[in-house]
Each structure stands twice: as C-alpha cells, then as structure tokens.
C-alpha cells in the first residue's frame, strides 16, 4: 500500500499540483483536499502547499487558519500525524499556532525567486529522516514574506530542542539565525520556506528535494494516525 499524502487546496494555493506530481513520481498516492472539507479522510500525511491562500489578505495564512480543514489538520497533528507546510503552508502553520514565530517581509523588500543552498540541521523529523545531518541541498525559494522571526525565548527553545531543521547557507531574506525551516515540539509538524517539490527532478534544475519527499513518504507509510 503506498503512503497517502493529502495536499490541502485553499483558494489561492498554486503549488498543490507540483506537490501531487512529486509525491506520485516517488510512488506515493496523493489526494487533493479542499479547504472546506471538515475531514482529511484516511491520509497518512498532510502537505499545506505554497501559494497565496485567500489572497494573503490581512497577513499570509491569517484567513486560511480559519478554513474548516484546519481543525482536522490540527487534530491530525495533535495525534502525531506528519504535517508539512511549504512556503505559504509554513505561514499558515505559524498563524494557526501549530508552529511558533512568524514570517515577515524579506529584509531588502525583494520578492525572492531563486535556488538557495540549504543545510539540514536535524534529521528526526518527517521531512529529514532519510537525510544525513549537515547535508547541503539546492532547493528553490519563491517568497516575499519568508523572513522568519520569533521571540528570543522561542529562539532559545528552538535551538535547545534541536527544532531548527534547515538553515540557509547564505541567508537571503533576513531570517533570524538563518532559519529556513523548523518543527513542532512533537517534531511531526514541519514548516519550511523553500520548495522541495520544485526540486524533484533533474529537469527542474535540481532533484535535491527528492530525499526530503522520500523521508515524508517513509514516515507516512509508518504513520499510525487513523
């Protein structure tokens, strides 16, 4: 049985099909979940994709967190299910309180669309379980509000609990402590600004996202959340 990954579609999401394609290419089953769905069905993992959910009105993710599906995502996360928020999905997770901190406008006020070097800093998460610590991956970023910030107390906690899972090798957006991705205290909820699903084939310029997505599929296959 292939692992089933649910990809949530909000009005304004635009990376959901990239995520679906990447999952299928690696042998997983991918299903689109509409934001008004109250249930996730029998998925083994959830991806909140990139885009501009609800037009990024108010703040990115601020309105998406009230979509009915987010209750189900919250319950799934609380039960230990793997949840990955990519780019706008990361913003949704912080607004929903499933991950700490916030993402503000890039230092330099530029929309950044480029490929960056990303260092894997922690491997005990659903997205990095099959990658060695210290591995440097080339993954695209595509954001205006990717500048991660949090209180000094939260930052200390993230560091001491080994919850900073990706750092930029060359910080492009002003994120505190070069943070590109973090995980929850339970380690099953992951948010990152770079797009591993866009680095899923050599023809796309990089296939460095593949080990990350393989990690997710392996974790999902062993996920016991019903």
């Amino acid at each position, binding site marked *: 049985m292939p692992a089933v990954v649910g990809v949530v579609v909000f009005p304004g999401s635009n990376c959901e099909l990239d995520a679906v394609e990447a999952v299928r290419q690696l042998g997983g089953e991918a299903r689109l979940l509409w934001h008004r769905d109250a249930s996730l069905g029998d998925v083994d993992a959830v991806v909140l994709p990139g885009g501009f959910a609800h037009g990024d009105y108010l703040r990115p993710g601020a309105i998406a967190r009230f979509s009915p599906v987010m209750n189900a995502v919250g319950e799934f996360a609380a039960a230990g299910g793997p949840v990955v928020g990519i780019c706008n999905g990361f913003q949704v997770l912080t607004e929903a309180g499933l991950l700490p*901190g916030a993402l503000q406008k890039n*230092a330099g006020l530029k929309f950044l669309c480029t490929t960056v070097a990303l260092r894997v800093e922690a491997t005990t998460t659903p997205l990095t379980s099959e990658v060695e610590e210290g591995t440097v991956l080339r993954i695209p970023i595509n954001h205006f509000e990717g500048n991660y910030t949090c209180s000094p107390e939260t930052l200390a906690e993230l560091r001491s609990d080994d919850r900073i899972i990706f750092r930029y090798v060359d910080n492009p957006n002003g994120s505190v402590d070069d943070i590109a991705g973090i995980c929850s205290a339970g380690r099953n909820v992951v948010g990152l600004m770079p797009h591993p699903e866009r680095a899923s084939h050599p023809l796309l310029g990089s296939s460095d996202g593949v080990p990350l997505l393989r990690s997710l599929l392996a974790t999902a296959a062993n996920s016991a959340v019903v």
Partner: protein
Amino acid sequence: MLFSVLVETRPRAGVADPEGQTIERSLPALGFDGVSGVRVGKVFRFTLEAADAASAQAEVDDMCQRFLTNPVIEDVEFTVTAAEGAAV
C-alpha cells in the same frame, strides 16, 4: 449601541520593518529631511454593535489578539467611540 472602531497596527518594537526603512531612506530624495522612526502598519475602521462601551472594548481587544494582528510581530492600539447618530 453602535460604536465606531479604529484599530491601528504597527510592527512591534524590535521587529525589523523593511518597508518603513525603505520609505525613510527615500524621503530625503524628495527633499523631506529630518524624518526618522518610520513604521508602516495597517488601519482598520469599522462599526460595531455592542451592549455597552465595556463590552465593545473587550470584543475589539479579542478580535485584535486573535485575528486582526499577529502578536508575534505586531503591536496594536484601538479606540472605541459611540457612533454619531446612534441611539443612546
């Protein structure tokens, strides 16, 4: 009772405001010298129906904390005044 509400948000002290900094750097080019401390925020104006001023204040405070602002990066101030023409 009807109340007029004005909510103002701004980046929290200590949180970088690249938009404000860029505007501040641009002003001298137009001859506006001596400007400092530019912070860019948002303003919300709306009308609220509530039993009395205290409950209107409490409701606005709640919506600010839970929705209108992100307390991690934004500070907020608001004023609640009896709307003109409202029956008292």
